[in-house]
Structure formats: C-alpha cells, structure tokens
C-alpha cells in the first residue's frame, strides 16, 4: 500500500512537471524547446574548443547515417529534435550529444569502428540520450546550480576546475554529461531499436563495446573519458548482445538505401594508421 502511494506520488509529480520524451515518470523542468535552446548555447561554447572536420564526404556520411536512423525511428520523441552531426578531429575515443540535438563524434571512435553499422550504433546511442532528454533530466533532478554555472561560463570568468585537457568549458560540459548507468542502459536500448528499425545490424553495438573494452586494456588513456561517461561492464555488453538477438529485423524493403559514401573509404581518407 505504501509502495502504491509512492508510485502515485511520482506519477503526480511527473504529470505536474509535464515531461515529454520516450520514457515516462521522470521530472524535467525544461520544455523540448528549452532543450533545443540549451543545446544551441552549449554547442557555441564547445565548438570554440573543438576542431570540427568539415569534409564533404565525411559529413555526408554522418548525415546520411543520422538521417537513415531518424527516418526509421519507431519513437515519435526522436523527431522532436533538430539533430546535427559533427565530426571532431580528436584521437580521443569519445562521442557525446548536447541536449536538443547536436551530436559530436570524435575521429578516435570512428577509428575504432570497422563498419557503418558500428558507427551507427554510436550515433544511435547518442541520439537516444537526446530523445530521452537525459541531460536536462539530470539538470532538473541533480543539481540545479550547475545550470547557472553553464549559463555563466561564457560571460563570467569564474574559476572552473581543470577537468579536461581540451579546455575548461568543454571539459565541464562533458562532466555534466556523465549519465547514470540507468540512463546509459536506456540509451543502449533505444539505440538498438533505432538501429534495427533503420536496417542496421543491432549486434554492432556490442561489437563496438567489445572493441572499446579491448582498447581500455591496450591504450587506456585514449578511451579514458569515454569509459568514464559510458561505463562498459560485462553486464552491459551481454545486455546489448541479448537485446540485439531478441529484436525482430525489419523487412528489407522498409530499409533506406545505404550511404553513398562508403564507410571504409571515408575512414581510409582520414586514417592515421
């Protein structure tokens, strides 16, 4: 009875906060437009510290993969956001998404991927954080004061802990985007469904996890930040494999055409090895 009362209270709170997204019962003080505005603001901050590769074939590749994922999305929440895809010329193995849609993929993680399906798994995971509105949920429930700090970064020279070698603002934003295991698991689940609906091989996600786990052993510093924001437990890898095996594959005719720029070619153009 007491549990039922607690559940009822949570429902009432969620309703009062008016959350929108792919999951329910989680408070979020932001509107969808608020997510988008915050993402726009943060993207200006972080892009000052990132070296974006504006190469035609590379951008065509990530845009084509992103569009293919989005077009096939089974969840309406994915279509609430204006996604944009950016490739960062950094050897660090990482990818992150800002609230509202900007997705950043480091060349370091492109290097780890061997197929377009594996790249799609990384992008689908990050897009799922956006659609599930994980960033603003965290800001709502964890520490509202962080919000004020982010807003102030660009105008007030307040001291910020030297978190990252790329730069203080980017490092701070990335620290804020460290999600709980529950949110990572949700992004995995949503990402797997998104990949599968788009005709990508959902087993590619576990395959990327295994490679990152291997890299953690051989070159730990290169994947350090990714692992810190996307912990790779054996359970998580097994879960991705199990869920991929359970998904029903879409009919071939429902799947969009493959990207015009093939993944191996684009990868080879920028290969450092």
């Amino acid at each position, binding site marked *: 009875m007491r549990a039922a009362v607690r559940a009822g209270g949570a429902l009432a709170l969620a309703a009062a906060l008016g959350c929108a997204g792919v999951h329910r019962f989680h408070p979020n003080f932001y509107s969808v437009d608020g997510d988008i505005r915050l993402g726009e603001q943060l993207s200006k901050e972080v892009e000052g510290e990132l*070296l974006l590769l504006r*190469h035609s074939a590379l951008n065509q590749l990530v845009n084509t993969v992103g569009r293919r994922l989005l077009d096939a999305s089974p969840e309406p929440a994915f279509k609430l956001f204006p996604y944009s895809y950016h490739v960062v010329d950094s050897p660090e193995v990482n990818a992150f998404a800002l609230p509202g849609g900007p997705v950043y993929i480091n060349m370091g993680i492109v290097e780890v991927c*061997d197929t377009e399906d594996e790249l799609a798994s990384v992008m689908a995971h990050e897009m799922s954080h956006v659609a599930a509105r994980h960033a603003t949920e965290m800001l709502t429930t964890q520490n509202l004061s962080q919000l004020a700090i982010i807003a102030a970064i660009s105008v007030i020279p307040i001291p910020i802990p030297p978190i990252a070698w790329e730069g203080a603002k980017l490092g701070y934003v990335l620290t804020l985007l460290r999600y709980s295991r529950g949110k990572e698991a949700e992004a995995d689940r949503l990402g797997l469904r998104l990949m599968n609906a788009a005709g990508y091989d959902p087993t590619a996600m576990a395959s990327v996890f295994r490679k990152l786990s291997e890299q953690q052993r051989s070159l730990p510093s290169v994947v350090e930040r990714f692992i810190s924001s996307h912990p790779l437990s054996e359970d998580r890898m097994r879960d991705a494999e199990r869920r991929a095996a359970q998904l029903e594959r879409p009919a071939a005719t429902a799947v969009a055409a493959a990207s015009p720029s093939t993944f191996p070619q684009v990868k080879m153009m920028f290969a*450092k*090895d």
Partner: protein
Amino acid sequence: MTGRTALALGLLCLAATSPSLAEDGSARAVVTAGSSAMPSWTPDGTHLVFHSRRKEEKQRGIAARNIWIVSTDGSGERQLTKGTKDEYHPAVSPDGKKLLFVSELNGSRDIWIADLDGQNAVPLTDDPGTEDQPAWSPDGRQIVYAAFPKEGGSFDLWLMYADGSGRRRLTTTPANEIFPAWHPSGDTIAYVTDVNGNFDIYTIDVRDGRTAPLVVSPDHEARPAWSRDGTKLAFTRWPAHGRTSDATPWVANADGTAPIELTAAPAPALHPAWSPDGRTLAFQHRGEKGWEIWTLALPADIAAPGRLRLAQQVRGGADVDTAKLRSGDTLRGTLTDPHLRVRTAYGAVELGREAVATVLFDTGERGLARIVLANGDTLSGFLENEAIHLAAGGRTQSVPVDAIAQLSLRAGRGAAPPPAAFRALMRNGDSLLVTGAFAPLRVRVGGRTMEVSAAEVERIDFTEAGNKAEVVLRSGDRVSGEVVGDRLPLVLAAGPRLAVHPSSVRALNRTGGP
C-alpha cells in the same frame, strides 16, 4: 553430421592449424609493440621509419602517436619524436637526412619537417585546415600532400618546396585526391581518387596537370607506392563491398598491367613500401593488439627487374598453395596431390602438380575449370579429382573441388621441362606447347601417302572435319592432302602425352627448334 557441416568443421580445423606465414620465410613481423603503422624505408635500406602509439607513452592524458625508427631485422628500435599530440605518416627524404611527417601539435593536421633523428622539427604548413599524407619528389626539392581547408570541401593534391614555400594546388576537382606517390622519374604522381565512386589509382602529370587512369577496377585500390626503379607499382586492394580488414597488397607494372596479389602477406596488409633494392615490401598488418610493421620478401620472379608476366599473375605471387573458396575464405598450405586429371574435349590429360599454376572454376558449371599451366598453356575441361588435399601445420585436409573458386599453386621446383617446338591451337580454344616428338604425320596426296616428320614442319593447318591438312614445310614447300589415321600423338612440353583426333587441332605452329 551433414556433409556440409563436416566440410565447414574441416576447413575450420585447417585454418586453425595453419602455420604462421612468418614461418615460411616470406612474410615476418618487424615491430609488434604498441600500434605501429605507415613504414617508410631509409634510402640505404637498413632501417624502417614508422609511427607508433604505445601504452606506456601516456602524455597529458592521452597516448599520442610518435615517429620511431627500427632496423629491418627488428632490432634497435628508437623513438624519434616526442610530440604530445599525434605525429604520424613519416616519409624519409631521398638523401636520408630529413623526415616529413604529419603533426597535430598546432591544433590541426599539419606537415612538419625534422632531421632524421627527430631534432629541429618545424612546421611547413600551419593552416587551421587539414594537410596530410606528405610524399617527397625524387630529387627531394618538393613535397606533395593532400589537403582541404577548414571551411570544408574535399581533399586535393598540393605541392610545395621542401622549405614550405611556393604552395600550389595541383588538383581542383570535387572528388577526393589522396595518398600521392611521386614517380622516380619526377614527371608524374600516382594518387588515389574516388572520382568513379570507389577508390582507383590515377596519375597526374606534374608539368601540365593531365590525369590518366592507372589501376581502375570495381574494387578499391589505395596507398600506391612506386618501386625505386619506377618499373612497378605496389598498392592495397580490397573488395568493392568488403572491409579494409580484407585488404591485401598487390604489385603491377608501372602502367597498371598484370596486377598480382601477394597472398603470402597476411590480411589486412596496408601501406606497402618498397625497399630500395626492390626485393622487399614493408607494410602494416593488423595484429591482435593493434597495427604491426611487417616485411614481405618478394618472390624472385616479382622482384626481378623488368615487366611482370601472366604466369606470375596467375600464380598470385605467393610462395604457398592457395585455395580461394566459394565461401570467401582462403586456405593456404601445400598441395599434396601429385596429379590433377582433366577431361578435355580432345581427351583426358593427367597434369603433374609441378606443371599447374592456377585452376579457375569461374564458368558456373560444376567441375568445369580453366587451367593455366606454369609454361603459359591454357586448358579447359572437367577436373576429375573430386577433392584436393592441402597440408598445413602438420596435417592434411581434403577440400572438395566443388567448394573451390580458384586454386593457385606455387612455382614448381621440378626438373626443367623439355623445350617446346610447336604451339598447338586446339579447336576448343586451348593453347598447348608441344615438343617436336610427335609421330610423323601421314598425308595422302594424289593417291600417294607421304610421311612428314616434325623436324620438317613449320606449320600445319587442319580442316574442321580433321580429314585434311595443309602443311607448310621449313623449306618453304607446301603440301595439302588427306590425313591418314584418326590419332595424332602429341607430347606436351608440360609432360603429358596425348593422342588426339586431328579434328581437335586447329593448327600446329613452330615456336622453336626441332
């Protein structure tokens, strides 16, 4: 257990027990520490310069790639640059004194130059755009590289002098031009382009900018490298819809003809680089832990000066016997079958293993094969062997012929074959070298029967029915008449003896002495 399952398990066992290719003396690992790639030879051929990323080199939070040098026997490895950001794609100058490489120290990919010991490093380009993949001109005065601006676009080829001055754009297409390699003549640069969608290799004339296709196929060809004498090109190829993990090294003539796959190199094998003496290719191979630097001792017939020939092409340049299966897998080992039996349109032929270079099952009809012999003969017919047997790692595996797409055999080491005197052009299109030891041809002319010995014959043309022949003698005389008998004994230069019906032969043309 079904037959197919048994076959799959058998093949798996063979693959699992195959000895390392390094053990056969043709390909071996030089550097396996960290992740090491993009080898470049010093001009004296004693060392390889490459870049490597090491676990222990954790610098300000990230292990950066840096430039290293090693003796070609793998000893004396030494780090040349100690950049805190990635430094890679080294290229040693033709005089061996300077080192070009790409560095990200200033925030983006720039071309840098240093002394060969890594000292006195300075940037040659310092744009916020991307400059990558530098290569020297043969005189060491200029540098070609691939670049695109920060604002966006595609890769173009650019030139500059070795001091960074006089930058000029060599290509201006919306396609990507990458991986330039300057021909030793100094006149042309080979490069990779996606102008046709996939990657192909083209050349551009440095003087007038004219481009020409060099190696074009539905597959991807990338990372070209010229031999020091400029007569041959090495490159990497992988299937049109495949992965770069399937990439293998190839060599071809400088005009792109006679491409040969070097199957002794383990896949993936990328970024081939010729040793100055042309006998060895360095390349990078993806090992279990990361990229490794390997060398491949080229088969003597490929390393030899001069043009590559068809027999080398069909052999695959390998020093092992290779069965490419219809499943896409490749098995390597030693063929233990002493003979291959072929039923041709003109009779059964038993070919010694030493005589055969390649068997191709590409007609789609079960068992029907095209066979290329080591001496260049071509035959077509049904292979009567139901299976071939490959030995590797101390065991022998039976491989059903139905499962094979192509069988490539290493060069035979048997006794030299007898000299050929004639080429027999068979009615079914086969082309066979035969000795002068065929029995005298008996021809009835005007009621008389003449015997024409092989030593007298320059050429014989047979009619389609096989009952008439026109003989041109070495003396210049001509004899036309009815062929007597229904069997013409022939001795193939490759060994087998045949007794064919004259109607099976279109012509016998002299190629050598008696």
